[in-house]
């Protein structure tokens, strides 16, 4: 059978998928780009061409700048905490002890929960009137009176970061655990005989095996954290006083709450660009790491 027929058939077989992809991803993307250069409203006006006015307004506006800071802070702190917690949990679960298999299975649970369920759960924990956190801290004598953790601008973002960490550190732990199990036993034994203590064994023997997989986890988690929407939307809707308004929340509010489709589209494209830059940077990093080992 001629090669071009095989290739034609391959394209034919992929055609249904391509049609679906173009219609649900390709076309909306193109339309978003078009919208972003107009002053269209969500309902009513079709909007007219306004050039790069939307972009100018968004990039120079204080809302965008503040949301960028909030998002970056959220992403950096929660991903860093997830990495540390995940690796520690993996080191622990890599030890020999009774009930290890059960604990390994249990650890997946937070990550397996739907984000909305997790967010609701944490809202209950943070509840200003009957939340478990308030009760625990009061009974331990750490606070005098119940606080509204999600209602105060000073603590809302931190409370969200904790909830996000709890949900996502198991993924890092899982990846790290798999990497730990790939460390050859002979190499660990050799390091023992060579006289390396626990810290040096981790640094010189285990870390080289962890670094690659952890980098992958870091890439995935950073990009996800940068796009964070659902957990915040369920827990605080970007409040109080916009203290938890990340870029995705801002995009949603601009486009749907304020019904400004044009500027919302431009904001969405800016966020997409930022995430793409992140992804490209990490991809380059990964390639370099792969080349080094």
């Amino acid at each position, binding site marked *: 059978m001629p090669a071009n027929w095989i290739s034609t058939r391959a394209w034919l077989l992929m055609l249904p998928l391509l049609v679906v992809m173009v219609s649900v991803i390709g076309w909306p993307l193109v339309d978003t780009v078009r919208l972003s250069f107009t002053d269209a409203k969500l309902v009513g006006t079709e909007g007219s061409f306004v050039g790069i006015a939307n972009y100018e307004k968004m990039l120079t506006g204080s809302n965008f700048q503040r949301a960028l800071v909030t998002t970056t802070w959220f992403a950096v702190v929660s991903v860093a905490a997830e990495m540390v917690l995940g690796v520690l949990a993996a080191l622990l679960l890599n030890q020999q002890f009774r009930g290890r298999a059960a604990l390994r299975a249990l650890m997946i649970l937070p990550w397996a929960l739907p984000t909305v369920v997790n967010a609701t759960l944490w809202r209950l924990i943070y509840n200003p009137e009957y939340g478990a956190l308030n009760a625990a801290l009061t009974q331990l004598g750490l606070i005098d009176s119940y606080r509204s953790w999600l209602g105060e601008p000073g603590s809302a973002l931190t409370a969200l970061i904790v909830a996000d960490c709890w949900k996502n550190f198991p993924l890092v732990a899982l990846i790290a655990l798999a990497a730990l199990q790939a460390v050859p036993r*002979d190499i660990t034994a*050799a390091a023992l*005989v060579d*006289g390396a203590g626990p810290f040096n064994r981790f640094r*010189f*023997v285990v870390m*080289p095996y962890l670094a690659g997989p952890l980098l992958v986890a870091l890439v995935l988690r950073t990009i996800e954290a940068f796009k964070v929407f659902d957990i915040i939307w369920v827990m605080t809707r970007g409040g109080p006083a916009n203290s938890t308004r990340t870029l995705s929340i801002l995009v949603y509010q601009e486009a749907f709450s304020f019904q400004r489709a044009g500027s919302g589209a431009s904001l969405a494209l800016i966020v997409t660009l930022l995430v793409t830059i992140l992804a490209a940077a990490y991809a380059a990093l990964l390639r370099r790491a792969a080349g080094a*080992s």
Partner: protein
Amino acid sequence: MSALEIRNIQKRYGDVETLKGIDIALESGEFLVLLGSSGCGKSTLLNIIAGLAEPSGGDILIGERSIVGAHPKDRDIAMVFQSYALYPNMSVARNIGFGLEMRKVPPAEREKAVRETARLLQIENLLDRRPSQLSGGQRQRVAIGRALVRNPRVFLFDEPLSNLDAKLRMEMRTELKRLHQMLKTTVVYVTHDQIEAMTLATRIAVMRDGRIEQLGTPAEIYDRPATLYVAGFVGSPPMNILDAEIGGDQLRIAGSDELLPLPQDFKRTAVPGGRVKIGIRPEALRLANAGASGVRLIADVEVMELTGPELVTTAKVGEQRVTACLPPRTPLIAGSTQVFSFEEAALHLFDPESGRSLRAP
């Protein structure tokens, strides 16, 4: 003073007894090979000496000092692993010097020691490379260097050559022998390869099911195997083992009319029913020509296999088979009946029940 003394070492994993009381005393400079098939407990014993596993009972002394319970780094041992176990992210030089680095040896001294070791192993030109850039043989040299550089009292080798191809394995074997002759170090070496054991060891401990089956020099193990197991394990092709019966001063090979004289140092005690197993090494058998001395054995030639240096011939005595290693140009025809001969001293006798040698000690 023994360099290494192993006293009644036992190891149990739950109900499974992996080591059932091992006793060995090693003089300084000895090269002990623990030889046995997989599962015999040889690697467990090595790990216990290294401190990578704890014994369930017994004691180990290195130079008068008990090391049971001591951290591996405090035992004055170094170990070479089957998989080389090099640190993949470190240069060869750092790999070799890592043990010294962890022991806080000053950099200048460390570098000098690494250079000397590298020169000894002829890997000076590789010092800046990573393990992934080395061949199997080079990695093995680095692994040996990592052990040598620390100048420990006892070297432990865990099947160090079994990941190498046949040619390289022979080269490294010679290299190890050369190093041992030069440095006069005390070595415990685990292998399942009887050739490695025979060529390298000053003494061999043949292990089976968590016990030492026989401990002796390579010549003793080969010439005077203490049990049927040792007789069958050491030697290639393995020793011919045949059923036989004692009648007066003679042995009759079961199922045939072949009669052999009883060896003079044979212990006559306790052989119920007069049944024994006899052993003859294939290389002790030759074709009997007229006037040849020794014991005669008539057999029907079945198969000849030319390996190059020898003609491995399988023949039948009654219903039992014997293998003989004959000179390569021996004119033989399959199906022919031949008279073989061997020296009386080459005849081994074993108790068929216990498998123990019936030779007077």
